[in-house]
């Protein structure tokens, strides 16, 4: 436990030195303020301008969903960048043959940042949410967001060999999050073509206001995570 704690603290010190990563840490707060105050303000302007009853309001659930993904994705992106930097310096393999071990390394670099993101999102969601969410949704929505962020981080660290490649893979891997848009914008059964994406079921839950879809998203995310985790473990051995 001591090694895991110190390894995580070391990661935080590393983030403090990197302005780009430090800025990424502030994004959840800035985005939260924007979503909570700027979006309803924008909605009023659009209603007055277009003359309809609502413009953005039908998509408030989608905005809440994206907010649940945002903090975990940012935290996991930071972790992925640090892992790639450690990969460049040959440190990830070295840390695995210290008392930290492979599991300790994964916990300090992926699990703890993801858990921190989940806690922060669960705290901030009631403050910044635009819709009336149930307690179940307040607990499960950040969980789906966190698991999707872990998938993104694992895709980045598994598919890229350095930070530059990592930036490119980040763009591609965030596509997996866009599955949440499908139930909102693609009607009919054709939308199920992308039902293999965990984010699709999160979007479905918000669009149809049926939280029962959220456990499907969680289960699917775990199915994605398992092979990615195995591949990453193999990569660092």
């Amino acid at each position, binding site marked *: 436990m001591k090694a895991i704690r110190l*390894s995580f603290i070391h990661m935080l010190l*590393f983030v403090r030195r990197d302005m780009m990563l430090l800025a990424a840490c502030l994004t959840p707060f800035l985005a939260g303020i924007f979503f909570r105050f700027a979006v309803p303000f924008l909605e009023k302007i659009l209603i007055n301008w277009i003359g309809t009853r609502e413009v953005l309001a039908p998509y408030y659930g989608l905005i809440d969903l994206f907010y649940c993904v945002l903090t975990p994705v940012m935290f996991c992106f930071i972790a992925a960048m640090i892992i790639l930097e450690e990969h460049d*310096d*040959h440190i990830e393999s*070295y840390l695995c*043959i*210290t*008392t930290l071990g492979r599991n300790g390394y994964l916990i300090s670099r992926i699990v703890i940042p993801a858990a921190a993101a989940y806690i922060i999102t669960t705290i901030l969601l009631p403050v910044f949410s635009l819709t009336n969410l149930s307690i179940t949704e307040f607990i499960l929505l950040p969980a789906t967001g966190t698991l999707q962020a872990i998938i993104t981080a694992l895709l980045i660290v598994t598919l890229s060999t350095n930070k530059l490649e990592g930036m490119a893979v980040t763009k591609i891997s965030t596509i997996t999050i866009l599955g949440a848009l499908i139930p909102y914008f693609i009607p009919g059964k054709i939308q199920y073509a992308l039902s293999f994406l965990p984010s699709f079921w999160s979007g479905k839950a918000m669009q149809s206001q049926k939280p029962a879809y959220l456990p499907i998203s969680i289960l699917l995310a775990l199915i994605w995570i398992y092979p990615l985790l195995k591949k990453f473990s193999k990569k660092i*051995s």
Partner: protein
Amino acid sequence: MITVQNLSFSYSKNPFISNMNFSVGKGEIFGFLGPSGAGKSTLQKILIGMLPTYEGSAVVNGTECRGRANRFYEDIGVDFEFSTMYEKLTARENLQFFSSLYDKRPRPAEELLHMVGLENDADKRVGDYSKGMKARLNFIKALLHDPTLLCLDEPTSGLDPTNSRIMKDMILAEKARGKTILLTTHNMQDATELCDRVAFIVNGKICALDSPHNLIMSRGAAKVSYSWLDHGEHTASCALDSLSRDEKLKSLIAENKLQSIHSSEPTLNDIFMDITGRTLL
């Protein structure tokens, strides 16, 4: 300290390491010698618990490597051929972080830095270090938690003669402190100078295992070459074990006419080529 029995390992369907057997005693410097791709580094990875999917048995410090817990690494220090330091951090910051991972009281970083002549560069970023400085820093990182077993992978690779000498002296100093050292190298001079015993590894198999001295002596006696002046320089040679029967040499000694005389033992590289039919490089 280390016992390996019937060890086999494969990355694919074809065996990479086949049926290896050896043991290493406490306080011994044991060398793995072989050309690139022979299986030396893979063997070292197995012994430090990085490749648990082997067959047979590999016991280090009383622990089967495939079942090691993280505490296993309290007594193992590893120095890879390449730098394993945070390039953006200073040497001192790197040493502080890595030593903090262990429960053992660390050896003082200042003392270790002084030992390798880096005390004045301790606050410099590792990224700004030369290759020799990185190699020395990497080495003392493996000593931080005062492990009983040191695994060194090509510790003198790419170093200039001065830094290579410093490195070899440090390895011998650690042996004198009672450490067991596994040395992976294809530098036969280093192996001859440092190792108590060496194992020749080719194609994942141990072809020979003994002390460098015994290996050299097992392949015939050394030769003695001598020269003398008699209307120009002449040279001759004879086997060391038949020196007393060389009449020419005896007469040259009696007449004080020898120009030069020296013995020439085969090198470990000669023995390696003799046994395996391959060079070390």
